[in-house]
């Protein structure tokens, strides 16, 4: 299953809720304000490291660029994708769930 999260982890609990339900083999795509979650040294990134074992984590590059987050600031283990890569992920998983 593919999970999408679009809210800032500092403002909403959606990412935590998502990670609590993502299971081995699932993928999580962070889009929009959720991309702030993968900035190194943030309290959110610590949670992600702790909770995503066995889960593939993706982040939408255009949303990183908009927010001025360059790749050097990302925690390890994150795959950056563009909109086409997002489409590929949707196609690759039989179902998806948005954590709004």
């Amino acid at each position: 299953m593919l999970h999408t999260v679009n809210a800032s982890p500092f403002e909403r609990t959606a990412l935590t809720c998502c990670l609590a339900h993502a299971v081995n083999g699932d993928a999580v795509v962070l889009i929009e304000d959720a991309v702030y979650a993968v900035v190194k040294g943030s309290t959110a990134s610590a949670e992600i490291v702790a909770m995503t074992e066995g889960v593939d984590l993706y982040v939408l590059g255009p949303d990183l660029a908009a927010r001025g987050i360059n790749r050097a600031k990302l925690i390890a283990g994150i795959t950056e994708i563009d909109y086409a890569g997002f489409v590929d992920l949707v196609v690759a998983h039989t179902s998806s769930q948005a954590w709004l």
Partner: protein
Amino acid sequence: MQPTVPAARIEDVDVKISVLVHAAPYTHQAADTAYQFILAAIAKGHAITRVFFYHDGVNIATRLAVPPADDRNIQKCWSVLAAEHGVDLVVCIAAAQRRGILDEGEARRHGKGDGAANLAPGFRIAGLGQLIEMGIQSDRLVVFGA
């Protein structure tokens, strides 16, 4: 930047995708992300079964918005998408009535006066059944909201 999704996990090049949009334009990025996602899907050769606008997403369909000249015009982006790629843009009738988005028939039926209809070109208003139907008829359904 190259997307690094493993190619082996991609099942098909002609997948039917439907999209559900829940959030108001400008206020939330959801309408923008959904639009970019759909452009990318079309570019990859997938088919967009339908886009269904629900909750405040129905406000995307107003023809009366006049955004600043240096900003994108979200409604126009979608109307062009419908015109150029034949994407079926369906606005939920119940959600639209509650929020004041009416086509000509609805405007007349509710006595809002001539010329009051504010549904933009390329959108149509229909029932929630269209949401269920698009779920049945497509291979994938993606939700964008707030």
